[in-house]
């Protein structure tokens, strides 16, 4: 343990003692000899952040961390007082390598370090196992990007997310497909993973409800790159649209081979294949695909956030940064409301919070899911995925209309999504 960590740990211990004392409206006890006596008492509140900072989606992990960091530094700059004591928020960044095993290890590490709350994790696969550890320790966690429904379905207290769920995403993309492309026959494929199959099931259900004929499900695996046999079979049934629940590494070859076989149908995908990688893998064939992502496109986030992020990190946010920014701000706002950084005190405030964030208004339902979460539909244009519609409260609107409604200024000339490949986190 480094000196710095040791110091912050002892400070944190002091904080907890102080804060809990303050919550009871008692005069703060004098700190022991370990802490010097500054003129004004400043205590440190630690907020953990977990995302993969190494490996294939490290850039997304860093993006998430930057979002949380921005929120925390802004809070420090404007100065927050809890229970009559000035506090300084400290971010504790951890790397879970997108690995569920590492995810639980760092979760335990953060619990041991006595963080007041956690922003993260990035992946559903790491967030789900980690949530039980935080929940047992009574530490609230807010993920800005875990979309698997199971995350908030475990009955844990203090588990929240500020993005939509996969079971909202399936209906969203299916409805868009049904209303815009007006297909008569749709082929639905998946990669036989929990994510892919779950999403494909939701899409199939929605399409059938809209009176569209759905062909018998075809399946590959999460490693299938030879789709020719399956596609040839599908081609014989002449579908107007094809939906694939899976990742870009398998979806790209699927799309490419479909066009090679002369299939003219509209190809549509979930967030796993809603990335610029699709055009790398499928080339020209990728243009015109339809895909969905949970949440709003990054360029539709509030201008204040976008400007602040750019000024601070000198790059544009990539994907989920507005959500981790909001997640960190939510933790801080709840602490301010409860006038305490103690999880047990501010958690009730968090569950009933109403907050205007960079990604719009945030309220949680009883499970910890964001009420009325948005979904965004993208299309591929010239090798870049471009948002074309935002779905909120069952209503489909164009991105411009959404931004007008949200009161945000129009996006800058160069949209953020165009600068770097947005890539959905791997679903495991």
């Amino acid at each position, binding site marked *: 343990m480094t000196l710095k960590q040791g110091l912050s740990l002892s400070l944190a211990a002091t904080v907890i003692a102080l804060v809990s004392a303050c919550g009871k409206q008692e005069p703060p006890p004098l700190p022991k000899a370990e802490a010097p006596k500054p003129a004004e008492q400043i205590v440190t509140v630690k907020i953990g952040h977990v995302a993969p900072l190494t490996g294939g989606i490290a850039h997304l992990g860093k993006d998430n961390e930057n979002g949380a960091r921005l929120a925390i530094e802004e809070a420090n700059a404007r100065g927050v007082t809890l229970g009559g004591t000035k506090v300084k928020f400290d971010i504790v960044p951890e790397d879970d390598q997108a690995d569920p095993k590492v995810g639980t290890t760092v979760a335990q590490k953060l619990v041991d370090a006595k963080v007041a709350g956690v922003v993260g994790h990035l992946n559903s696969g790491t967030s789900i196992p980690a949530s039980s550890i935080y929940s047992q320790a009574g530490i609230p966690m807010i993920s800005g990007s875990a979309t698997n429904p199971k995350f908030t379905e475990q009955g844990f207290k203090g588990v929240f997310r500020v993005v939509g769920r996969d079971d909202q995403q399936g209906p969203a993309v299916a409805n868009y497909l049904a209303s815009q492309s007006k297909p008569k026959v749709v082929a639905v494929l998946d990669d036989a993973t929990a994510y892919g199959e779950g999403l494909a099931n939701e899409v199939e259900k929605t399409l059938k409800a809209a009176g569209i004929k759905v062909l018998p499900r075809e399946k590959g*695996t999460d490693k299938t790159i*030879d789709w020719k*046999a399956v596609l040839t079979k599908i081609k014989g049934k002449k579908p107007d649209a094809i939906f694939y629940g899976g990742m870009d590494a398998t979806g*790209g070859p699927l799309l490419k081979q479909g066009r090679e076989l002369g299939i003219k149908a509209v190809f549509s995908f979930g967030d796993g294949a809603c990335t610029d990688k699709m055009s790398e893998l*499928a080339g020209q064939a990728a243009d015109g695909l339809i895909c969905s992502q949970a949440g709003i496109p990054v360029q539709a986030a509030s201008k204040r956030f976008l400007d602040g992020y750019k000024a601070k990190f000198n790059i544009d946010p990539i994907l989920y940064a507005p959500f981790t920014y909001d997640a960190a701000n939510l933790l801080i706002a709840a602490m301010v409301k409860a006038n305490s950084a103690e999880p047990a005190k501010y958690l009730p405030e968090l569950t009933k919070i109403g907050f205007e964030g960079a990604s719009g208004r945030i309220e949680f339902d009883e499970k910890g899911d964001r009420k009325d979460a948005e979904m965004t539909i993208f299309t591929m244009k010239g090798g870049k995925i471009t948002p074309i519609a935002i779905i909120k409260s069952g209503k489909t609107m164009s991105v411009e209309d959404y931004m007008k409604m949200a009161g945000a200024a129009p996006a800058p000339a160069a949209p953020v999504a165009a600068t770097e490949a947005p890539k959905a986190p791997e679903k495991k």
Partner: protein
Amino acid sequence: MDIFLQQLINGLTAGSVYAVVALGYTMVYGIIQLINFAHGEVVMIGAMVAFSVIMALAGAQPGLPPVVIVLAGVAAAVPVCMAVGYLLERLAYRPLRHAPRLAPLITAIGMSIVLQHLALLIWSRDPIAFPQIIPLQVFEIGGAAITGVQIAIMLVSVVMMAGLSAMIYRTRLGAAMRATAENPHVASLMGVDIDRVIAVTFLIGAALAAVAGVMVGTYYGIAHYTMGATLGLKAFSAAVLGGIGNMAGAMLGGLLLGVVEALGAGYVGELTDLCHASFLSDALVERCARDGHLILFGSNYQDVFAFLVLILVLVFRPSGLLGERVADRA
């Protein structure tokens, strides 16, 4: 009918690649009775090296015709793979040539893991996309589509197989290889340099693997550090199907396996649709009226066919379709 023809074309393309990779397995087995389980990884390295070169060239010299860029990729991949093949033989197999047969098998698996992780370190765990330099050309044959890349793959495979056969049966080196395969001890007494023949066998196998790697990568447009495992296993199945140790068998086995796989994936769903037999029970009738289908085995069983075929062949004809000797326990 056009669907059937399309599946046949799909199968023959994949089968050509299997055949070329299977040749590498069968040649090595024919000579030293070793299953070189690292052969699939050599294919993967071929694809990776070629992709790196093709990407660099396509970025630096966008004006070059695609064929030239791909050939440059092949030209880079072949020597690298040959070096890997030679090192494999020199480091992992030669010291164990007289050891119990299980030992080189274990080192083969070990080398396969080493090569895979080496590739992971060099090329990362992200799938690499093949640069989109080849314009999509689709030709129509009887209602079925065939792309320029597919035609090229089949042609190159045929040329390579023909060239290899000519080398084995028409040259002195080929004669030495056949002699070594028949009886290494006697061959060495007759003045054949066994070590050299075995090394050359590995070099040729690796060169074929390099070309196969480029073919499979170009065809699917993607390369990944784990791509060698499944491909290697399927090619190995193809070699056993045709009779391991037998060159013509490997080619036949590869093509057959590709076709069986494509037809299997294409038709298994319809063949195992229980609704064709809905007279069996009322519950089935009801279910079929609602969903229209009740499919027992879907197209995700595509990969299973290769191994189903392998098991069936081993049960009913252990020496393979064209095998002369009874295959040893591999």
